[in-house]
């Protein structure tokens, strides 16, 4: 059983999670995104297309480093941040 890690959610995806920070499990980025989708149905396809590519204007950072490979290993203390490219900002805007 992989550990639960913190996942920061981009504002356009908060309609799925209802929160800007959630927990998800998975020993790889692919597994973590699958877990997120099981908790929040539909969220994965809006980030990752049917050819298993992260969408053009979505970015995923793990501990501050950009990651594009869905097989990237997730460790128990990792922090995952999902953002949209060159936009976003305060939820108050």
């Amino acid at each position, binding site marked *: 059983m992989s550990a639960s890690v913190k996942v920061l959610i*981009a504002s*356009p*995806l908060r*309609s*799925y999670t209802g929160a800007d920070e959630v927990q998800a499990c998975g020993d790889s980025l692919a597994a973590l995104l699958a877990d997120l989708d099981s908790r929040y*149905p*539909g969220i994965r*396809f*809006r*980030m*990752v*297309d*049917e*050819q*298993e*590519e992260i*969408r053009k*204007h*979505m970015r995923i950072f793990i501990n501050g480093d950009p990651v594009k490979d869905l097989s990237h290993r997730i460790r128990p203390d990792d922090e995952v941040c999902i953002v*949209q*490219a060159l*936009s976003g900002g305060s939820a108050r805007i």
Partner: protein
Amino acid sequence: MAKARKKTKASGTKKPSRRPKTDGNLLLVATRKGAWLYRGNAARNTWRADGPHFLGQIINHLVLDPRDGKTLLAAASTGHLGPTIFRSTDLGKSWQESPRPPAFKKQEGGRSVKHTFWLTPAHANEPGVWYAGTSPQGLFRSEDGGVTWNEFSGLNDDPQYRAWMGTEQDGTPDGPKLHSIIIDPRDPQHLYFAMSGGGVHETRDGGAHWKPLIDGMEVVGGFDPKTVTFHDPHCVRLCPSNPDRLYQQNHCGIYRLDRPATRWARIGKSMPAKIGDVGFPMVVHPRNDETAWVLPMDGQTVWPRTAINGEPAIYGTSNGGKAWKRLDQGLPKAQAWWTVKRQAFAADRGSPVGLYFGTTSGELWASRSEGKSWACIARHLPEIYAVETADIG
């Protein structure tokens, strides 16, 4: 997923003394920044705005299922997020997201859907069945009311069709599209669709076999009209009163086809020479196959895609395209540089027929006189991508 939904009186309408009675007239308006429903009274002269739904999301099409009168499907995406389909079974009071929206199969060199562009409810005898056209060009089908979607008929991977679809570079700036999915009301196995680019196509066996229907259609000068991929039909409509008659607004003219013939006739040649026959949308009369309407645009030089000379006008024919009449009473007389996209012009089933169009500048216009006069019923909306009518009375 349903977000804040507000009900306000449509701008540009006379203030009613009390909340107007709605008598089943519904306009479904899809925009670059969300969707709106406009509910009209029996006289169709007062409209109440219900929206925005999905504020900020790109809504390419919003369609009501005429078979049950309550199921709405919305084709959505955003600038960043992938595409999806939202579904409502209570006329937009609440929305649920499709757990499996249209998507190509995963394979080496496979494509990904950028957005669902077109939604069509299937035959009246196939409740719950819908078709969807995507960008890049793909044809999908749902058999559970739009909840889940599958690729339809093998077309998306057919080598010949893939060649005719071309690459994304061959398509419009917003991506090549499959659109104008039409079901013959006499036969659920008889379908048409069109591609920009890639021509008009037909099946008579429920998608087992398809064939192009491009004879008589013209292409940009210097190219071979026999090459399917060069054809750019913008909007194809079937006449409800005569399912053997099709009208088409093409990149290269206005056409009519009377089946079983297979050769389109360029009826746009009878348009005034100074106007020409370039445009995006086309609308047909619900009960008279001789009557249709277009909204010409400027297709010169770099294709401004604006009203010609900044003077927008509808052109209508009442004799199958032999002659056209300018219909611009109430529309701006000058300095109006908007246009109307291929899905943003629609007719209701009233008598006289009501016509409605939404502009790239966010104005919603209506005519209760089959185009003779026009009134703006909403303005300041985002860029309007699609307008559909529905009767929920």
